[in-house]
């Protein structure tokens, strides 16, 4: 018993000593305690993967542990609201797709907008693409468009008002297609099985198609953002190549990055410290490999006022779209 007690006391003393060393070592007053990083989805999602890829370097750079918390609900909005209302001291931040806080907020009943956040740094984009099953009759996107002119066609979306589906909707209208049905699924993971099984012609996917394209089960017809994972990427056009007249606001929607945000009013030095540590973390070899594997782009131009401006552009275009399709926010 005595030995156990001594051991416990010893461990406690060690903990106290080591933590005071950590506190003493940093001349910078911030951060002095662990940072809570929130994710608005259950563990294992797209955003979670990104965070795990950079977390250890990020936390090493900051000198304090970064604790990941999950706060799922309402497609990320529950978490966004929580962050918007948190204390802007830098200890409560979230990793989120900027599309959630600039666009998706418009579709639910919440007073919060992108103005309630501090954009710390966007660092990676999505791999948004249009895919078909390998043995589908259409070799190019144009072929599918021609087919859809004559016959009833279908495509699956990960949600009706997601950024990809807004762009696709623009393409359908531009091509003047009348007989195309949009089949809504809930999230990109649900779309893979139906497109492989031939239940829908096309699927608008977000990264989870990468191994299936490389494995020869799916083919990319059109790439919205990110890199083409197919064996022959040269054959796949990007959105801007296939439709050079695509408005900038739509491009901003699909090129919107994933990144760190905090509540509005975070002190500039703290934001800088976070961005600086994150920049180091995302320029690590391990993280870059992760991006290469999942065919995601490294994004570096979404910081500070710049990010705010782009978010505004995407949000305004999105609001206009919602109005145009008659979506009523209750």
């Amino acid at each position, binding site marked *: 018993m005595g030995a156990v007690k001594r051991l416990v006391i010893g461990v406690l003393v060690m903990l106290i000593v080591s933590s005071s060393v950590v506190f003493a070592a940093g001349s910078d007053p911030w951060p002095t305690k662990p940072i809570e990083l929130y994710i608005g989805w*259950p*563990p*294992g*999602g797209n955003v*979670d*993967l990104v965070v*795990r*890829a950079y*977390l250890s370097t990020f936390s090493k750079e900051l000198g304090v542990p970064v604790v990941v*918390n*999950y*706060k*799922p*609900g*309402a*497609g990320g*909005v*529950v978490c966004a*609201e929580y962050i918007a209302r948190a204390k802007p001291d830098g200890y409560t931040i979230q990793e989120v797709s900027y599309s959630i806080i600039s666009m998706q907020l418009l*579709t*639910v*009943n*919440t007073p919060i907008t992108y103005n309630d956040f501090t954009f710390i740094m966007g660092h990676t984009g999505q791999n948004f693409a249009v895919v078909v099953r390998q043995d589908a009759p259409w070799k190019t996107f144009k072929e599918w468009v021609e087919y859809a002119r004559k016959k*009833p066609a*279908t495509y699956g979306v990960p*949600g*009706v*008002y997601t950024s990809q589906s807004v762009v696709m909707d623009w393409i359908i209208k531009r091509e003047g297609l009348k007989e195309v*049905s*949009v*089949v*809504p*699924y*809930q999230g990109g*993971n*649900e779309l*893979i*099985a*139906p497109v*492989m*099984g*031939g*239940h*829908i012609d096309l699927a608008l996917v977000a990264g*989870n198609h*990468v*191994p*299936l394209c*490389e*494995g*020869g*089960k799916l083919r990319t017809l059109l790439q919205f953002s990110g890199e083409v994972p197919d064996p022959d990427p040269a054959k796949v056009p990007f959105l801007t190549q296939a439709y050079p007249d695509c408005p900038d606001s739509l491009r901003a929607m699909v090129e919107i990055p994933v990144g760190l945000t905090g509540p509005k009013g975070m002190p500039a030095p703290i934001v800088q410290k976070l961005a600086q540590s994150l920049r180091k973390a995302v320029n690590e070899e391990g993280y870059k*490999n*992760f991006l290469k*594997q*999942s065919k995601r782009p490294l994004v570096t131009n979404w910081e500070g006022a710049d990010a705010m401006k782009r978010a505004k552009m995407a949000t305004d275009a999105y609001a206009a779209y919602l109005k145009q399709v008659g*979506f*009523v926010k*209750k």
Partner: protein
Amino acid sequence: MISGFSIALAPVNLLFCFIGCVLGTLVGVLPGMGSATTIALLMPITFRLSPVTAIIMLAGIFYGAQYGGSTTSILVNIPGEATSVVTCIDGYQMARQGRAGPALGISAFASFIAGTLGVMALAFFGPPLAELAIKFGPPEFASLVFLSLMLVGYLGGKSLPKALAMAAIGLTIGTVGQDPVNIQPRFVYGILEFNSGMNIVPILMGLFGIAEILSNVERIIKPEVLDAKIKTFLPSLQDWRDSIGAILRGAGIGFFIGLIPGSGAIVPTFISYGIEKKLSKHPEQFGRGAIEGVAGPESANNAAAQGTLVPLLTFGIPPNVTGALLLAALMIHGVRVGPLLITQHPDVFWGCVASMYLGNVMLLILNLPLIPLWVRVLKVPYYLLFPLITLLCLVGSYSINNSLLDLVVLIVFGVAGYLMQKYEYPPAPLVLGLILSPILEKSFRQALIISRGDFSIFFTRPISAAFLIVAIGLLLSHFFPLFIRRFRANVAD
């Protein structure tokens, strides 16, 4: 395969397989603590391990949880995992009759048999089965769910109208949240969390756990009654004779439904229960402690857990949150799960499969000696046990989303469940309705969007048509005897 065993038998892999199984059993036993949360928490620890070892351990947690899930269902009427909710119906009744031992025993054996059969099917027929699974589109899905809904009649107590009413309420609660097609919020009453639908776990814990405590507090049964009756810890020969058919059928149903991405492991447990009751020579025993009612569903959820691994490991299609996590873990290790997994990383695929054989044996050896220990939980005086269960329910509900709202839901459904029990409204049909409602609505509407509003899509596709025929057959077999009786009564008049 043989190389797989040589990987799985390496001491470090055996050790981590064991750790995974122990942890899995533990999180299975603890209500609310799901395998998904645990895997997420432990993922960073696996970074230092090789990818094979990591996936062996994490998969162990996944299928191990299916073993432990039934324990609290049987002992205290709280499903440890959502997939063990059906086990509550007869398992808890068995425990109250002093047969907790055989109930726990048969569920461990059922889990073992189904788990092993499932692994074998995965190893030998993985890729072709996955090809089959993707033939399942929205219309097939809608018809399957419709068929499952016909099982309501088998889940109720004495009164069919009451069961139907409960199912209708369940279906209605299932519509809370954003409409799956045009994302308009429904019945959310300004509560942001409800936009993504109501969480199922607090509802289950309320309806079963809290409700049971409330009604027991009222009744004040003396624990000695239970105490005196605990005789054996293992199922008898007669128990085996009663349940072996249920186990095999449950394994088949669980595995095939588990294969279909998006179906989950809960639906097959309900189907298995319904089938066993339909086939049983003494259906009146169901709901009063029929061992088949434990064996079938427990077998089904384990087989389904293996089934969901088929599309995951062969195509990289995650069937549920836990599956997505396993995929994420492999991705972090630089192993991309997709059609190329078996050729590019045969060690990962076969090592994982082989470890699951071993894991199932370990889980059986681990779980059987625990049974006498678990049974003793029933001897804990109620003034200690009840607060403890309430605490477990509260912590479990909160831990899923870290949301206080879930506690409110838990309490509301606890009180509702208590009143339901008092007035003999069965909770199981409500749960069935709640689980099926979102899947039914989504797949039904997707099917109609694909067919442009033409209902014939449900009848012209063979798999879908077959499900509908069985569903209509079930419906008729319910009502036909009723009509005959009416008719005879009329003739007699």
